[in-house]
Structure formats: structure tokens, C-alpha cells
């Protein structure tokens, strides 16, 4: 725990560059939100397509959403590669939203 623990000198403490911290904080926060948003929309659309009542699907997904965002957020913070986090969160959000929109189109057609 060299950076954050008490036993080390104050030199290693200040090693975290502000830009990287800011990047990670913003990405993990907005990224996990966008990912969860897409996941929820996709889940509601997919469950509806499977014949689940719309509000039931919505309720179930919204309960699940906060467990998902918690897990995704923690992963985004712990993951080593920022580009991987970018890829999974932004890519996942876009794919989920597109899939949700597509499923909706099929149901309403």
C-alpha cells in the first residue's frame, strides 16, 4: 500500500498526477452510469420482447441497475488499463442502447 498507507514518506503520496486521477474519476463515474443506463434499457426491451410486462421488466431492471453500477464502477476504478475501461464502458453503453432501440423497433413494428 505504498501510495496511500501511512508507513511511507510523503514523497510517494504525491505521485498521483492530477490529470490521471481526474481522467479515472470522470471515466469511472460517467462511464459506469452510461453503461448501466444502456444495460437497463436493453434489459427492459429484451424482457418485454420475451413477453414480460413492461412495468415488471422496468422494476426488475431498476433494482438490478444499482448492483450493476456498483460492480462496474469498482471495476472501472481498479482496472489497470484505461483504454480497456473506455472500450467496455463506452462500447457497452452504445451497444446496449442500440440493441434496446432495435428490439423496441421490432416489437412495435
Amino acid at each position, binding site marked *: 500500500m505504498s501510495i*496511500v498507507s501511512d508507513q511511507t514518506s510523503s514523497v510517494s503520496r504525491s505521485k*498521483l498526477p492530477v490529470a490521471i486521477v481526474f481522467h479515472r474519476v470522470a471515466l469511472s463515474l460517467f462511464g459506469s452510469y452510461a453503461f448501466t443506463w444502456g444495460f*437497463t434499457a436493453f434489459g427492459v426491451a429484451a424482457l418485454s420482447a420475451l413477453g414480460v410486462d*413492461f412495468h415488471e421488466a*422496468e*422494476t426488475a431492471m431498476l433494482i438490478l441497475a*444499482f448492483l450493476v453500477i*456498483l460492480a462496474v464502477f469498482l471495476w472501472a476504478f481498479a482496472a489497470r488499463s484505461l483504454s480497456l475501461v473506455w472500450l467496455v464502458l463506452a462500447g457497452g453503453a452504445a451497444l446496449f442502447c442500440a440493441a434496446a432501440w432495435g428490439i423496441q423497433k421490432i416489437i*412495435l413494428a
Partner: protein
Amino acid sequence: MFANFRQSMAWLHTWYGLVLGFVLMVVFFFGSLSVFDREIDRWAIPETRFEPQPMPSFDKMLLPILQKVEPHEVDYNAQMPILHDHNQGPMTPRLELPAEEYWAYTTHRDPVLIMGAGFGVPKPKDPEGHNHIHGDVTIDPRSGKLVSDEALKIGSGWFYPMHYGLHLGWKNLGYWLVGLASLTMLIALVTGIVMHRKIFREFFTFRPEKKIQRSSLDLHNMTGVLALPFHFFFAFTGLVIFAGWLYFPVAETLLKPLHHQHEVLEADKTGLPHERSGVPATLASVDAMVAEAKRRWAERDMAGEVGYLAISHLGDQNGYVSIYRAGSDRVALVGEGIHFNASTGELIREDPPRSTVGNINEFLTGLHLQHFEHWLLRWLYVLGGLLGSVCIATGFIFFVEKRKQRYAQKNSQFIRVVDAVAVTVVTGMLIAAVGMLVANRLLPVEFENRDSWEKNAFWGLWILAFVHAMIRSGPVSKALMNPAWREQSIAIAVLAVLAVGLNWMTTGDHLIKTIFTQTYWPVAGVDLSLLVTSGIALWVARILKLREQASLPIVTLKSKTIESGEVAHV
């Protein structure tokens, strides 16, 4: 960014915990007070100190009052320019808006009844949207007399919204901050567990005789671990309550077409019309419908009072009356809705029992919103909320204690500001809350804009507490304690006793009366809680005085490193 997983979790715990902890503190504390919001209302509005009443006759009492309800000016000014289609001419004047829905709501703890009307926007920009301007009133259901708008319901109208919205209305900013803080609570619990391998031992570890840094960490861990399921559950369900409306409104945005189709199909299936027909119609006896609803509940072995009553598409042939049972005997909220045709009084539909998913959701949100009648459980909620507050507050203290030596050496002012903000959100918040009660009893009843002045007192005292904490923060930069902690504790003690005394002087309701001769627990409970608060604040001030006298300015790291071995916390 970090060398390992534990380190990244520790960073999150420290920094998210600190920054959002200030918000969390407010959420936990006012959440604890909100468990008894209606009781605080009674304390703050003495003319409503009587027993809870069942829903009165709709036809005889509520309807004539509802017909006089006007769209609220603030709501009209805020919403009308957004909802109205300006291409179709000027906005309909406020008092000419047609009432389209009525509602009335009460609980087993409410002597007063709140009710209101939703007014339609005749030329809406989005005809499919929720085009309503609202207006509401509070009445004494025994007489039908209106309770003045200026009588601020400090519990349900100020402390409770503070709990979930911080009174920051702009762009729902307060809700978002509270949501982020709730997520932070979940994060802090998970990361806290990751950081503490010896979690079971910490259940039982509290060493008050040790240094502040060690004992505050013990208390932080103990309150965090002991009430961990409680904290997790409340942060989680709090998020779920607002999820569909604000945090993840998928049904109102991306999936709106699907949602709309469902609503229309649903209206067909339930027989509850989705739209107005345009054909005017009169209103049949609602009291008869209430009697029929009660009979049907009794038949299902669920006799009970009406909790919520609503009339949709008022004055239209498609109008219907929905009657819901009060939720005082179970965890779920109002329910078992029964719907009647508004103009004929015929039964349209009885809501079927909830599905499994619906039941889970009602159970989760119901446990959070606690509308049930179970006083022991209510007090356990307060205890859990206060344990959460202790957990957060000791987190601040640990953060400061751990760093102040180092910052004193570096001559940095950062920790001094952190400590002052911590004073503000811990003792300063109590000063604001208790001071508001004092202001409530000091301001004359006929005082103009009385409610605004109570709110001003609340914010003013809170700002004052911050200024005081900043001014007195000098010693922190020398690695000593900020005397504001102690001084504000004394202020809390004085204000709390003052509030109890003023309540006695202005209403004649002293504790001997409210406990023994004319027992009225809502007021007695608030008074007793204030006295206990005062006692604890004095005790804390005394201990802080002893600590202050005992501590010397030690600006070396030596004394610290002795203990740092066991302080393996961030």
C-alpha cells in the same frame, strides 16, 4: 493508476468518502429525523396537536374544499411557460385552468389531511406529456378548516425533503448529489470491507481510552460493520425509489414509444381510460364508492382505512375514482386499489395481487419509506441512521487526525479547511436543525412570511456555524483540535433546552402534561429527544475540554509512528 486492487479500493474509500461524506452526513441525519417527520410537524404547528383522523367524508367535506383549490403560483410560473404551446396564443391565466384530477392522502400518523388538484394545460406543447399544474392544501379533517400555508411543516416539509433533495431544486441537483452520495455509501461499504481483513474482530473493538485517531477509527469500523446491512439496504433502496423517475428514466426517454404502447394496451385491459373523452360528466357519490371499497377489502380479510384517494379525468365521461388502502399494517405502501367509474359509481376494476417482482419492489421501497405502524422498528431506524451518521463523522475525524501532523509540518492549510467543513456538517447541522425549531417558537404566528424566516434561520445558522468553524480553525494547522467542535456542542445544548422551554412557554405543553396528564407522544417525544441531545452535547463538550487540555502541540512524527503500525487504514 494504482499498484494493486486494495490500494485502488482504499483510495476510493478515502476520497469519495470524504467528499461525498459531507452530503451523506446530511442524508443520514435528516433521514433519521424523517422517521418522525409527522411528529416534528405537530411540534412545529401547535394547532395541529390532536389525534390522527381517518379520511373524512369526501362528498360533504373534501369536495367543496377541492373545488376552491387554486393552481400554485410558484408551480404555475415555473411549469406553465414550459408546458404551454406558445404558437397557439398566450398562456391560459392561472385561475382559469381547468381542474383535471383531485387527490387526498393521509397516514396513520397524520392528524391533518393533505389534498390537492392537478390542473390541465389547455394548449400543451406535448399533448402526450404529463401536462399538470398542481395546487394543494392542508386541512383539519375534524372541521374542514384550512391550515395556513405559512405554517411550515418542519418535519415532512423541510427535514424530509432535505433528506432526499437537499433543497437544491435547480435541475434536480440535490437529488443527483444525494444519488451520488448513496452510490458512494455502497462503494464505501464494499471498499471498507476490502480494506479490513479483520472484519469480525472489529465488531467488538472499541478503545475509547486510546488516542483520538485510534478510537475514532474503532468507532468508524464498529458503526460501519455493526450496521452494515442497514446502511447497504437504505442506500440501495433509496436509489431504487428514485430510479425510474430520475436516475434511469429509460421508460420516459429511449423506450418511451414502447412504454406508451404498453400504457394504451394496459388501459384497454384494465378498463381505466388513458385519455379524456371530451364528453363532460358529473361526479357520483364518492362516499358510496369508499364504502364499497371498504366492504371489498373486508371481504378479502384486509379491513382498513383509506390511505389515498384520487379522481382522474375529472368532469369527463372517462373519469374514474381510485381508492387505495392505507399501508399501516404492512411493509408495502398504499395498495389494494379499487377503481370506480366517476359518473356512475360502478366498479371498473380491483387491482390484482402484485406479481413477485412488484412484491419485491414494494417490500424494498416500503421498508425504506416505513409507512407501517410499528414504533419499535421506527426507533430502530433512527438508531440505524444515527449509527450511520457516527460512522461518517468518525470517518472525517480519522481523516483529519491522521493527516494533521503531516500538514502542520508542511505548513499546508488543507486539513484545516477539511476539519472546519466537518465541524459544519456535524455540529453545525445540528445547530441549524435545532435552531430552526427555536425560530419556529420565537416567530409570532401573525408574522408575515413566517415560513421563509424559519428557513432563513436554518440556512443562516448553518452558514454562521461554518464561519465560526473557519475562524476558530487556527489550532488545526498546529496539529491541535479546533475548539469549534466544543463550542458548537455547547451551542447545541443551549438551543435544545431553549426549544423545549419555548415550546412550554408558547403552547403550555410541558413534559409533565404531554407525558402524564394529557399524554401526547408526538410532542413529548420531540421534547425528550431535544433534552437527550442537549445532555449528550454537554457530555461531548466536557470530554473535548479535557482532550484540549491534555493535548500539546507535538509537531513531530515520533509519537505518531508508535501507533501507525496498527492503523493500517488509509
